[in-house]
């Protein structure tokens, strides 16, 4: 099911999202809903890439390199993260 998720080429955080990313943890605040999200280390690295406009394929590569996990797993995890961010209305996808 997870593997079946499409991973958009690029993902952009909306302006209404405040992003605070550290070396191991991250924090997102949606100014419209008031929802706050805590990110673990790999999600933080991924969110940093998305925030900087990095293509998702490169985000996958960065996480693979940093955490020594296989690319298929990272791709599935990133697809799931992006799907959650889309569902929460925190990001918009392109491509």
């Amino acid at each position, binding site marked *: 099911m997870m593997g079946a998720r499409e991973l958009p080429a690029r993902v952009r955080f909306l302006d*209404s999202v*405040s992003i*605070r990313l550290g070396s191991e943890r*991250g924090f997102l605040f949606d*100014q*419209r809903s*008031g929802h*706050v999200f805590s990110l673990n280390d790999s999600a933080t690295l991924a969110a940093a890439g998305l925030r900087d406009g990095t293509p998702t394929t490169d985000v996958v590569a960065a996480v693979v390199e940093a955490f020594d996990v296989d690319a298929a797993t990272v791709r599935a995890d990133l697809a799931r993260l992006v799907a959650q961010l889309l569902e929460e209305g925190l990001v918009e996808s392109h491509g």
Partner: protein
Amino acid sequence: MGELWIGVTGLYSTDNPHPGLGVIRALRQADPSWRILALIPDRSATGAYAAELIDAHAILPPPWSSPKVLGARLRAIAHRHPLDIVIPTLDTELPHYVALRGTLRRLGIRTALPTAAALRAREKRRLPLLGRQAAVPVPETVVMLSSEAVRRAAARLHYPQVVKGAMVDTVVAHSAEDLRVAAGELGTTWGYPLLAQSFVHGEEYDVAVVARRGEVQGTAVMKKLSVTSKGTAWAGVTVDEPGLAEQAGRLARVLRWDGALEVEFIRTPDGRAYCFEINPRFPSWIALAAEAGANLPALLVRIAEGAEPELIRARAGRLFARSVVERVFFGNPLAALDAHRVRGGLLSIPGARPAGRSSRGERSAGRVAVTGLNAADNPSPGLTVGRSLRLAPASPALIGLTHEILATGAYVGGIWEEVRLLPFPSREEGGYPEALIEHCRAAGADCLVPTLDIELPLVAWLAPRLAQAGVATLVPPPEVLASVTKPRLPALAADGFRLPRSLMIPALDDLPRVAEALGRRFVIKGPLADARVVSAQEEARVMARRLAATWGFPLLAQEYVEGEEFGIAAVADRTHRVVGSVVVRKEIRTLNGNTWGGTVVADRGLSALAHRFAETVRWVGPFELEVIRHARRGTFLIEVNPRFPGWVYLSAGAGANLPWAAVRLARGERVPRMTPRPGTFYVRMAWDSIAPVERMATLAVEGRVSGHVG
């Protein structure tokens, strides 16, 4: 042009705080030249002790008096003292002010109030109709006019239900039995009708509005981040949610509302927002709106003055975290207040000062870590300990340690040099011991003051390792700590302490046996905290179930002892000698039985009790004894807490700074015996600290946050 005097009501700033204090803070922020007259029914309105905010006080009849009585009193006040505008903030008194509109006009007192019809149309029982008119979803609501109606409704409703008093108060009922008991409590306190509202799962939002002739002039939308067991927001953040503001606007338009309004919503996971309550006044968190750029109380004043201000809207991302804070005075400054006069300057008497400010030979201040920063409605003592240490003659730098990013005391300004995030206290998992030592080391702390019951055994166990890391503590050995836990407390009777009869409650089925042994009325206690007095079997079952849901079984049952209540805070050195004790007579109580004000008394018997306790059990460090003095049977020891109480700032104000003594003893310094000043009085009030949401983000991401709240 003369001064503008604004009268504000609703100053019970306790566990379900009235909005008055927040309204006054906002008014002060808008124009410091505005003068504030606190209108209170009696001296237990704890927000009326906010010295820096209030210029004068006057007694008003209680909200349940008639409009005629209120009108007469307002007339008397206005004849003797300037009163240009009045802002009532209580649901129960709004109808009176609306009925007195003409009287107020004749007295030259301006207001911004709804019509009587609008006020009625937003009543809880009429909410479903109003929702339909405004096309705003409302939860299913059943109106129960009598105890018989409660019994009938209880049998057919689906649970959970939210049971509400007609004006205020809420209890969530999970079963028919729960509903009957909750309705019994609410009916006794507030009368009928009561309401049962289907429980809607979702996230809560609050919209504060000021409207004129049904048109919104200003809004602030707040998402609740934490609530008390009564559903009162204790932390929240402003959001940019035009949808909810628009729905609130539709309700205001249908009502043709004038004045302040609070509209409460629950948003379900599918995005649908249900309006579950409309209150005809400002919410208690209204100071946040002002800080977020929408000073709605000031807007109301300008509308009352006849101005046509521009539309204002709160910006997103401002956080409020509510803490319980104490104010200390030499005697009750409102003691001179009576029902005949308006009194100014009552709070301008000098505040209490710590003793020994210029002591020679005080060691360097150092850096002290303090735990237990959640200062919510039943506050942990970390904030009050920190505030005491700030009053020390050589105030140390303070490091706040918390395991919750929303520990409200972490957001109070002027106390903490930095706040650090710890894992939840657990001996086996989560790395708490290592994290505690590492955080103390990294922060350069040379002393640790633990304040949570749950972590005390861990710190006692870790004391040698902390000492090796250069962190001093003053805690009893683990076996001494274990000897005063609630289940083992009755054993103190063998040492001559008088305790109420106590029995364990291993399971719900044991309640009849317990009730038979202890009498119809007794106290049920959780193993670490929480206590409820019960006086009927059904009530006992429901309360036991509620407590067990939080703490698990076994619970403790204690004989109910009637009498005057006292708290004794003390510190014992490593030879079990008490270096200082403060005895407080509990005076201001909430409906839940919590203490929000009291006076230091010189009571040799109770001081001696603290000395005897420390010597008998070989105690080391801070402790609190809770006692009840029965008129005939004498003094009963009802509770021992192995740490400072949540009111210990009073000790610093009374000249016997117990937290500072504990720090000095922990460091191996000699502390001479301290005597508190009798008559020193304290009140607690719920105070909203306001910060950018980034402070919470920094704590969550970095695990620590430095610098003062701003």
